[in-house]
């Protein structure tokens, strides 16, 4: 009997939740928020191909491709409550040579103090529930899917490098990091504090998030290209890259 009552209460709640048009007060109209991702090295905008940079292992590297997936965006309000952006619409491909903005539309007008997002796609969630299936074509066109595995590349980072002793000899490098089932989970979430963001009705605000490319090599862990220049399905090194990557985001204000 107790179960039946619980069920009834549950149903009533569900039904009430449907009547969102009939509440007495009309909330303020929502606004829009553009999250602009700027890929940098040591504080300056990343220059693809044209520039070489040096990592802490004293290796010179140039970047030919940089893409990553942003997902599960949540905005944290001043009162610590959260606005979870509709999950199925929260997958964005950030491409140094293409789109670098996550356009969030119809965000409730409010005051926000932090932004939380995922890097990659949460592999533990059922794909229908997390709404990732419609992201497949975009990820596929960008080469962010593995053909032998039903999984995403969360980060695709490629280029060439040389070491100090043979500076004229360049060798390709390739980091492809993703999750492979539940056994090798490289999905990460980061929270970035921002100065108070007052999102007004019917207006579009913008926040720039910096991604420091140098931190892919040097952050919580140090990765040397001489030691390994091709990292994909790698239970030792891929998690290090994922951790370094998650520490590479900061706000520019």
């Amino acid at each position, binding site marked *: 009997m107790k179960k039946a009552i619980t*069920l009834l209460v549950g*149903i009533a709640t*569900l*039904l009430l*939740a*449907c009547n969102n048009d009939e509440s007495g007060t009309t909330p303020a109209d929502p606004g829009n928020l553009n999250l602009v991702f700027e890929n940098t090295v040591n504080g300056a905008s990343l220059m693809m191909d044209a520039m070489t940079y040096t990592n802490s292992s004293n290796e010179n590297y140039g970047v030919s491709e940089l893409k990553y997936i942003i997902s599960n965006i949540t905005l944290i309000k001043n009162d610590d409550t959260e606005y979870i952006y509709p999950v199925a619409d929260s997958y964005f491909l950030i491409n140094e040579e293409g789109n670098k903005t996550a356009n969030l539309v119809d965000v409730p007008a409010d005051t926000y103090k932090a932004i939380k997002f995922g890097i990659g796609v949460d*592999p533990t969630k*059922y*794909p*229908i*529930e997390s*709404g990732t*299936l*419609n*992201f*497949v*074509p975009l990820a*596929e*066109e960008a080469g962010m*899917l593995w*053909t*032998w*595995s*039903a*999984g995403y590349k969360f980060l695709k980072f490629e280029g060439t490098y040389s070491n100090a002793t043979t500076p004229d000899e360049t060798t390709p490098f390739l980091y492809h990091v993703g999750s*492979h*089932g*539940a*056994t*090798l989970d490289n999905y990460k979430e980061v929270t970035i504090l921002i100065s108070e963001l007052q999102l007004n009705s019917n207006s579009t605000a913008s926040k720039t998030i910096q991604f420091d490319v140098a931190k892919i090599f040097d952050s919580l862990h140090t990765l040397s290209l001489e030691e390994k220049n091709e990292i*994909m*399905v*790698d*239970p030792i090194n*891929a998690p290090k890259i994922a951790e370094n990557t998650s520490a590479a985001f900061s706000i520019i204000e």
Partner: protein
Amino acid sequence: MKPITYLIIFLCFCACSSDNSNGNNANTGDDDPAVVTNPLLDFTVPSNFPDATYSIIQNPPTEKGFELGKKLFYDGQLASDGVVSCGFCHIQSFSFTHHTHITSHGVDGQIGSRNAQPLHNLAFMNEFTWDGAATFLDTQPIIPITAEVEMNETVSNVLSKLAADDDYPTMFEEAFGSEGISADRMFKALSQFMVMMISANSKFDKLERGEAVTFTDEENAGRAVFDAKCASCHAGTLQTDQSYRNNGLPVDPEYNDIGRERVTGVASDNRKFKVPSLRNIEITFPYMHDGRLGTLENVLDFYTDGMVDSPTLDDQFRRPDGTLGLDITTEEKVQLIAFLKTLTDNDFIEDRRFAEF
């Protein structure tokens, strides 16, 4: 939870869908007399089966969703050459595998490195493919559609072809209650078709359920051997513990297939492959991940005398004297095969619902 509870919750969700896009069965047709009805299909877990792993409540099969999934399954447009459909390698009369080639053929006569697995009881599996490269049934089709040696196509291009087709736009609308062809809907429809493919009417099933069948003495003896020597891996009603193991197959240098290690990157997974369900095993030859063994006799001879050692070989195959293999007598092999044939489900392979034509 009882089925009625599922139904009530499902109806509540339907009641919430103001635009019909989520409610698969919400095509009420109040305004438009042309709108077709789309009843839910009866997905019932056989009484001798474990719970389904697939989340039926999130993608409940409907009549129109199933029809759409079936059309997609048998449609060569999902491949770059317009010919190699899912059903090209997954043929119903062989419990949705194929016999003609040892490893499977793809577009342009390309040959893969593995043998197509049979498709049955997928709603009860935790992971998919020989190495578990797909964690969810809804994303599994990405692999064969995009693999060069299989269908060599892109999901985007498949969607474009479907949108330009005479039939698909209407079928998607009927299945999902609103206009629109999307990847989400395509994969959902394929899953709706595949989760209905339940094989649960073999002699073995009927015996498990206490229906009016009896095993012969030979089948009973085979079952006893199976329980003693095979069931530690081929466990339970579906004859698989769904783990990945190295069973001592010599490495074929042509493929040098590292198995599960490709998915996990872990050396201890080298040469491990999924323990397959033995459902319909009589008709799903050739056997092993690369189809190298043609008969059940070959398989049992391999298990007694054919194994080679490697660091990841499953310990169950190490005999106390240091040799490798299982101890099964010639008489026991005959009995085992008699038992394995009780797993054949003729109702399933003749079920018109799944038939191409």
